[in-house]
């Protein structure tokens, strides 16, 4: 199920892997010393293994997942793996910061509220898993899980990774490109999954904004911010301006855009 290819792009040779985990494509591009060594491949396998483990714990689609059992009261938080408490705390903080627009209690398929930490888990899990790539000496990586991305470049002289931001109205084209040497990128919109993003305050699909892309230092933060900002609808840009250090692109329903520059403020 996993495939790996090598391409030449400019001076650098990229080595790519892709595999499907957690219901989404997980891709990495490696560049540098360990792009094709056994250590590089081992790092990839370790990442995939860890993401599969996370899926077993947090997937709302698996009836016997820890999160579903916790949600049904079959387990207490203390009985869960310690990561669950960590993720729940992230969810609580996100709910507070977003004024309730983001929540870990969301309607399930039957319409009733259930424990659903998906908005938090992906960024958190991917940020953790990236440590396997960080441990590869002299190796740059660009790691994407379902469109949430972490990049790193060793050395100031390396080319930045060029991250294309998908056009919310057309998944085959781009609306912007952001060069990233080191950092994380996350995008929220309704494309690809229908109206899975709901405003937790109203329980209804979000309107007023087409997509929000946030760029920052760590994926768990930008992932939550992208989701929370998106849930603010027409107030997405003003909400983002209250978040220190967040750089973002907001795309409105008419495809006009607002860029927010957070790099010069301390976060």
């Amino acid at each position, binding site marked *: 199920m996993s495939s790996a*290819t090598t391409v030449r792009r400019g001076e650098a040779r990229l080595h790519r892997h892709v595999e499907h985990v957690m219901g*989404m494509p997980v891709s990495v591009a490696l560049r540098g010393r360990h792009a094709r060594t056994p250590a590089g491949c081992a790092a990839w396998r370790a990442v995939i293994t860890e993401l599969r483990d996370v899926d077993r714990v947090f997937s709302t689609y698996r009836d016997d997942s820890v999160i579903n059992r916790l949600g049904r009261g079959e387990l207490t938080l203390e009985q869960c793996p310690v990561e669950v408490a960590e993720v729940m705390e992230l969810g609580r903080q996100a709910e507070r910061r977003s004024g309730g627009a983001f929540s870990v209690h969301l309607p399930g398929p039957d319409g009733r509220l259930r424990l659903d930490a998906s908005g938090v888990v992906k960024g958190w899990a991917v940020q953790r898993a990236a440590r396997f790539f960080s441990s590869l000496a002299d190796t740059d990586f660009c790691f994407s899980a379902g*469109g949430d991305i972490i990049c790193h470049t060793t050395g100031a002289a390396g080319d930045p990774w*060029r*991250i294309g931001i*998908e056009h919310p109205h057309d998944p085959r084209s*781009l609306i912007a490109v952001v060069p990233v040497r080191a950092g994380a990128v996350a995008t929220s*919109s309704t494309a*690809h*999954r229908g109206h899975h993003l709901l405003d937790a305050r109203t329980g209804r699909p979000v309107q007023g904004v087409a997509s929000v892309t946030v760029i920052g230092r760590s994926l768990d933060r930008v992932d939550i911010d992208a989701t929370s900002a998106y849930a603010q609808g027409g107030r997405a840009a003003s909400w983002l301006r209250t978040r220190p250090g967040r750089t973002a692109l907001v795309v409105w329903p008419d495809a006009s855009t607002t860029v927010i520059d957070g790099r010069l403020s301390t976060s």
Partner: protein
Amino acid sequence: MRRIVLWLASTITVVVLVFGYHTSTNKTLLAGVTNGTSTNGTSSARPSSPSSADSGGPAATRTYTGAVTQTRWGPVQVQVTLRGEKITKVTVLQRPSGNSKDTEINDYALPILVQDTISAQSATIDMVSGATLTSTGYVQSLQSALDEART
């Protein structure tokens, strides 16, 4: 600049604590540090001269080299020269690399809007950030075109 002064000041505090284990003249060292921290945050890292302890004499010059200490900005090693009981020089042997404001600003740039439709095969992009790409939607996505990597 402020950042350099901050970690240098905190490092000197740490150095004092570290040196506290090595010398019995804690009080006099602390007095010396109060003067020492008012220096501007020069952070040139020069090779350390061997520690020397002149025995005796009120104006004896002594050099102490601290252990490498982890600060929140990274590893730091500081060498302190005392004349008598006053710190006369602080030399930074090792300082945190990177994370200056310049580096932070270089970590990423602002998104650059794309005016025309660009196809993945011709675009010079490495990865696509979009809404959660699902495995079912993947086949039609830009990301799959990149992963397939046709040059």
